[in-house]
Structures are given as C-alpha cells and as structure tokens.
C-alpha cells in the first residue's frame, strides 16, 4: 500500500495543478467584473453628436431595454463589432445608444458616415468623464440597461457573435 501512495501522491498533486491551470487558462485577467452590474446606470446629460443644442440622458430611455455601446474612432476593436451592431440595428431587436468616448466630433462622424451608423442616438463624451462614471477602461464596452434604468450586463471588449447569441440577446429578450 505504501509504495502505491508514493507514486499516486505526485500524480494527485499533478492533477490538482493541471486542474488549476485549466481553469486559469479560461480566465481573462483583462475582464474585471464590474461593480456596476445590477446598479442603476449612472446619470449623465451629454450633447448629441452633430445635433447642436440637443442632449441625451439615460432617463430618456426609461421604460425601454437598451444597449449603451462605448466606442471611438480611434478604437480598432470597435470595427470588429461594428457589423454585428449594424445587424442588430437592422433587425430592430433593441435600441442602441452610442457613447463616442474621448473622440473628436469630426472623427466620430467620419467613421459613422463611412461604415454606417447603427445607433439611434450618439452622444459625445469628449473628456471621458462619463466613461469614468461607467467604469470604462477598455473600449469597446457595452452595457445592457433594463426598463428601470438598471445595468444588467456589461460586455468588456468587442461583442462577438457568440456573446450576442448566448448572453446579450437572451438577456434582452427576457427583460423585454
């Protein structure tokens, strides 16, 4: 029995280590869980892109389930998710609000007119203050906000077909 243990113990320790590494490999250290999930979306009132004098606030969407998508013209990964946003906008499944983060109006407009504008409204956060309130640290980020104005989910990094199919759309459907 004892010699058996001598061989089995290192194997057992090895298996435990493999287990830890296997889990660790699937974790993304860049994804920091947001403390804002299940909290009311921070209030703001920001100018609407290219519509002088017009502003938008999250209260304007009260009673609707909507997505707040943080993007910028300088953000490469935003282009990856752009086709998916266009598709979402065409299908009319959920209203999209864009937050043009730390960007100039001209460049933001340039990207939208070139690649298409999936947003119902685009607001501009030129100095990134609203971004701080929303805990933005890597663009793009997308927030699912429910009818009562509570953040229900935060996607860090570009939306993928998978995250759309398995997380965002089922959640939106459930909330609607």
């Amino acid at each position, binding site marked *: 029995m004892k010699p058996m243990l001598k061989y089995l113990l290192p194997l057992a320790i090895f298996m435990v280590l493999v287990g830890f590494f296997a889990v660790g490999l699937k974790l993304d250290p860049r994804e*920091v*869980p*947001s*403390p804002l999930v299940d909290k009311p979306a921070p209030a703001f009132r920001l100018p609407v892109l290219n519509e002088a004098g017009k502003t938008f606030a999250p209260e304007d969407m009260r009673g609707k389930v909507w997505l707040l998508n943080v993007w910028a013209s300088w953000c490469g990964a935003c282009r990856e998710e752009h086709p998916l946003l266009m598709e979402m906008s065409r299908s009319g499944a959920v209203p999209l609000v864009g937050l043009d983060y*730390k960007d100039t109006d001209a460049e933001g407009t340039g990207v939208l007119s070139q690649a298409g504008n999936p947003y119902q409204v685009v607001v501009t956060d030129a*100095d990134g203050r609203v971004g*701080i309130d929303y805990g*933005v*640290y*890597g663009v793009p980020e997308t927030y699912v906000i429910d009818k009562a104005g509570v953040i229900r989910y935060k996607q860090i990094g570009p939306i993928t077909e998978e995250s759309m199919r398995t997380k965002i759309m089922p959640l939106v459907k459930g909330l609607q």
Partner: protein
Amino acid sequence: MMRKTLAAVLLVLPLLVMAEARPLGEDPAVEARLKALSTELRCLVCQNQTLSDSSAPLAEDLRREIRELIAKGMTDKEITEYLVARYGDFVRYRPPVKSQTLLLWVGPTVLLLAGLGGLWWVLRKRNSLLPDENDNENGEEA
C-alpha cells in the same frame, strides 16, 4: 569682438528668463496626496502598473479626477471608495479582507504551513529509516 559680445548675450539671456519648472498641479499638498493615493491604485489599462506610474490616457484622466476630488475636500478613503464603486476592488493594490479575498490573504500562509508540515513528515520518516546512531534520539520513536 562682435562674436564675443553675442556669445555673452546668449549666455546671460537664459539667466534672465530662467525660472523653476512649473509643477504639474497648482498645489504641492494636493500633488503629494495624489502621489500617495495613486501608488495604491491600479491602472486598469496596463494592469501591473499603478495609477501613479502609468501614462495611459485613462490613468491621466483618473489622476485629473482624483485631483478634483481632493479639491472638493474628499478624504483619501472616500476617493478610494469612489473609484472602487466604478471599477471594483481590482483598482486597489491592497484588496480588502472579505470572504471573496480570504484565499488571497491566507493562501500563502496556508501553503507555507503545508510545506513545513510536509517537510516535517518527510524528515521524520527519513529519520526513522536511518540506522540507529544515537539511541537517545530514536528512543522516542521506537
């Protein structure tokens, strides 16, 4: 002669306009607090740097934000809580002790104790395998 005068003028000119480099912020006390606070906070863009070390645009924005919060008269604790409310405990380099972070805090001690326990166990076993050299030492184990 002409060149000498010119050189002298050029040499003296900087002395007339020289002044001490302007600090980034207005108030040195605010800067000192910002410095102390931001070495305790993590930059979320480049995660292994402190806010104080990082030159990422977000770190600059956050330093500006902290400067403004200090000017508003908030305490260091309030400012840290303000950031934790937005970015989570992850922004703190010293995570608070709570059920979620308990393993993080006691883990190293547990590992150390387990290692010492293992060492003791192995040494004791090895000792009992050794031929008796000193009767007094092995007497207890027999």
